[in-house]
């Protein structure tokens, strides 16, 4: 068991190295001189040369990579060109809104998608199934920002139930915090619900065809218990897997949703960074999100042990 754990955790290391390499190369291959961008207006050639020296830009690429990774491991992600703060500081400032949004979205998604998928599988082939799956296809075809604007129009402007934009930090009170997160999380969760409902339906439907289900039914167990305890439990692995893969979708969706609802999180920071070509910031955020993705998937793999004791690696 421990060997399995150790092996699985170690297997993330090469992936992280590759991510770091890709991100590093992306930025080093960018046209333009990062030293000149940092030095800015007072662009005397001595200043630029000095900064190049400081950043180690005159060394060979592999040496630069090693140095850069070294700094990375020490938690130094560099300094933003424009905002005069370290990347780590800026990420720290903006992380709460994004995490809040992601967490609420995840909760909403699971609470909606799993039951939807189970019901669809239960009524497999029937009109309810078709309708739900139809909605699900629509869910990942309509762009999130259109949904967002329509929701704002209806719920914030006409009905005035919810705020139009912005984010309230949790420290200002849980009620305003959740109020500001309702519309954004609904917007963001739609595509996620669509995806997970589909997979849940497929996995549960598949599980329902297994022999042990027939046995359970033969034993006289109620359909509800059959669904919940047997089919769903066995479908848990594919569902959880998709949640993990869906994190990538979630991160992408966060960028758009934060823009529509003016939530000052990492997504907006990314857009700002890109619009101002603030490369250290772009680099830092990409790395951060990738690491999160890798770790989440690691956790999910480890959670298989809980769901299926038969698994041994």
């Amino acid at each position: 068991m421990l060997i399995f754990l150790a092996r699985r955790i170690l297997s993330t290391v090469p992936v992280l190295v590759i991510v770091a390499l890709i991100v590093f190369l992306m930025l080093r291959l960018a046209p333009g001189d990062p030293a000149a961008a940092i030095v800015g207006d007072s662009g005397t050639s001595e200043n630029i040369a000095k900064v190049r020296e400081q950043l180690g830009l005159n060394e060979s690429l592999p040496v630069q990579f090693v140095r850069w990774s070294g700094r990375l491991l020490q938690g130094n992600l560099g300094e933003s060109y424009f905002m005069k703060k370290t990347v780590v500081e800026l990420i720290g400032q903006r992380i709460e809104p994004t995490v809040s949004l992601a967490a609420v979205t995840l909760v909403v998604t699971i609470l909606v998608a799993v039951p939807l998928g189970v019901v669809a599988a239960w009524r497999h082939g029937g009109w309810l199934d078709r309708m739900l799956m139809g909605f699900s296809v629509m869910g990942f075809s309509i762009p999130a920002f259109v949904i967002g604007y329509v929701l704002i129009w209806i719920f914030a402007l006409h009905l005035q139930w919810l705020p139009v934009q912005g984010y309230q930090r949790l420290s200002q009170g849980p009620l305003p915090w959740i109020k500001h997160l309702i519309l954004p999380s609904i917007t963001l969760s739609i595509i996620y619900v669509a995806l997970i409902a589909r997979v849940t339906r497929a996995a549960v439907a598949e599980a329902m065809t297994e022999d042990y289900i027939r046995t359970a039914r033969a034993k006289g167990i109620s359909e509800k218990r059959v669904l919940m305890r047997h089919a769903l439990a066995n479908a848990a692995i594919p569902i959880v897997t998709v949640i993990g893969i869906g994190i990538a979708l979630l991160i992408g969706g966060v960028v758009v949703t934060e823009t529509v609802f003016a939530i000052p999180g990492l997504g907006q920071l990314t857009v700002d960074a890109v619009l101002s070509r603030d490369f250290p910031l772009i680099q830092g955020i990409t790395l951060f999100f990738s690491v999160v993705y890798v770790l989440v998937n690691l956790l999910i793999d480890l959670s298989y042990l809980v769901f299926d004791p038969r698994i041994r690696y």
Partner: protein
Amino acid sequence: MLSKRNLKAVVVGAMLAIGVASAFAQEAGKVLRVVPQSDLKILDPIWTTAFITRNHGYAVYDTLFGVDEQGKVKPQMVDKYTTSADGKTWTFTLRKGLEFHDGKPVTSEDVLASLKRWGQRDGLGQKMYAALDKAEAVDANSFKLVFKDTFGMVLDALSKPSSNPPFIMPARVAATPPDKQIDDATGSGPYIFKKDEYRPGEKIVYLKNTKYVPRAEAPSGTAGGKNVYVDRMEWVILKDAQTQANALANGEVDMIEWLPPEQYTALKGNTSITVDNPIPKGSFALHLNHVIPPFDNPKIAQAAIMAINQEALMRAQMVHKELYNSCASVYPCGTIFASDKTGYFTGKPQFEKAKALLKDAGYDGKPVVLMYPADFALLNKFPPVMAQLLKQAGFNVDMQSMDWPTLVTRRAKKDPVDKGGWNLFITGWGIADNMNPMFYAPLTGNGEKGWFGWATDEKLEQLKSDFLATADEPRRKELATAIQQRVYDTGIYAPIGEYKPLTAYRKAAVSGVVRSPVAVFWNIKKN
């Protein structure tokens, strides 16, 4: 396992906790929430002429003199001043009780250091310091400026309302070389910049400076008493015009500093919102880069200027006819120096003539880079129209999207286009900027020492010096007209049109917005 009873208790307890927490989450004091015209990334109002930074400057700094609504210079930090008989020596005494936010008193050393730094960046400041023999402290509270010859615009310079205003900073901060940005926002103004809550892209926070001693007079323009009636001012960054309007309509913010015209009709019709016009007039201009090709050739620069269609450009940006008008003069139409002697420039497009000029000058067809601040609601309709107009005139155009703070930084680059340089951009000015040729930052002909664009025109600089040397009104008018002609001949920049800047705020919540040529935030009351 949670029994049903336990579960109920937990839920009730949680709801109580939420309720209590919400009650405690009320903020203390009055907070004024303003949506500023753009994000504030640069804190140095001497390094940049960007209005957002200038507005920040007016919040945290104070000035020696101010300009009231009628355009008269009034003392602000200065208590009294005297001029010598020959007019060459000016002695100023500061008011008592002026303190910086760190508790240290404002001394003449601070004043002189600040003025010196300003004098190295600002066009009028440069002229003033060139004419200065010496600037020295008399004692901790007074200082004198001794000129080689009479300098006709001393008070105009020290009260300059718009970019760059000569804000007074602590001497240690003013010691920063003028081509580097300061990072310490300590000033002696009515607001204090709250550095630990500064989140660029999200929020900028100012606190009332409780130790500030305002003048007794009523506020008018940038002069008079700068009383602050709120405890805290927050600049909430909202980039999307629709989001700004929604937030104002919903009460989530109190004021939009600069209302995008597309929201004009919607907000005008909203009875709970006041759409106001505290800054009387502004203008827009197309600025060209003269240190790299092709606009280093005046003929090509003229061709670009001939592509301007003021009506189309202004209509695209301002939408409503009551909010704009054309004006071919580089000075605001209706003001003292405005003149219709504009040479080839009419404000109407002259595509054939432009094409002919391009052929004549041997334009190589390389695309000109037009910087496009896509997120800045007050400027982002011009570039697409300008790009098409330039194409009609025979240019190839590369319109590059970026955000406004990036544009402001990038326009400082003198590099060629393939190394991140630029050829053209459009920006807005206030009436305070271009009503006098000596005030207008981009009106420079001293090459690389001048404003972005760095045009070289010795005749222009000579005319400016002549203007400074005389106080005779008719002579000044003549010179102003000659200056205007030089601008068009060299193709330094060209006006795109004039407009009424609008502010919107919640009727019930906000009052006391000052009539001023620049956006100022004192005197505003919040209910």
